[in-house]
């Protein structure tokens, strides 16, 4: 199981800025190991963000997103105390969901 996603959500005016840092290797499938064999791609494919259980954003990612991906987005109408959850799923079928409270 991968390490938790770090999520910080802060209210700024009528919206909340959400910064997330996921923990994932994001292997591109381009790299070769010492023996010259291609290291197979292993990366997050799908990301979903929810505000109080309601989906606000979905994303599809390729292998070109950096290791330990960072994602920042703004959620309209989020208030202090609201719950933001972020789920990712990688191409091996692993998945992880983490939640944070808007401050």
């Amino acid at each position, binding site marked *: 199981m991968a390490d938790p996603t770090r999520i910080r959500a802060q209210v700024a005016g009528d*919206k909340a800025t959400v910064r997330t840092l996921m923990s994932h290797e*994001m292997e*591109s499938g*381009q*790299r070769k190991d010492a023996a010259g064999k291609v290291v197979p791609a292993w990366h997050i*494919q*799908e990301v*979903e*963000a929810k*505000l109080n259980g*309601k*989906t*606000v*954003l*979905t*994303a*599809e*990612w*390729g*292998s*070109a*997103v*950096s*290791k330990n*991906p*960072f*994602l*920042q*987005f*703004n*959620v*309209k*109408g989020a208030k202090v105390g609201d719950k933001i959850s972020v789920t990712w799923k990688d*191409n091996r079928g692993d998945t992880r969901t983490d939640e944070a409270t808007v401050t």
Partner: protein
Amino acid sequence: MKTSIQNRRETLKQSALVVGLLAATGLFPHHAHAAFNKAAFEAKNVADALKALGVGMPIESKGVAITAPDIAENGAVVQLGVSATLANVKQMLILVEKNPTSLVAVFNLTDSVEANFMTRTKMGQSSDVYAVAVTGDGKTFYAKKEVKVTLGGCG
């Protein structure tokens, strides 16, 4: 028994065909929950990636903005910001022209999220980076910026 299997195969074949057609014409519903678009992410250039996603060739617009460094010392981590001031943006894409596969990310927006994202990407070499916004009426707009990479991040 044999015939029923054949029927099932036939049906499967047909539905695969329909899906293919939908994707080709761009009628595929984007919010039909995030089926990962493998073809688009494996496309080797910007035009093929857009075609696989079923969006038209975008036109340059001031309503789309991309923030990226002029020079990235480390191609493994290039911070990119994409935003759009256009109304009714449904989808935002990030593409790096000269990467082995051009498409980096697709964001599917809802009404509760702003067309403003920041993330980090890997770049193999100096290249133009595109931010593409797809609006609700199917129009596409882009902004691009050249990023020079001193040390590639794909090798």
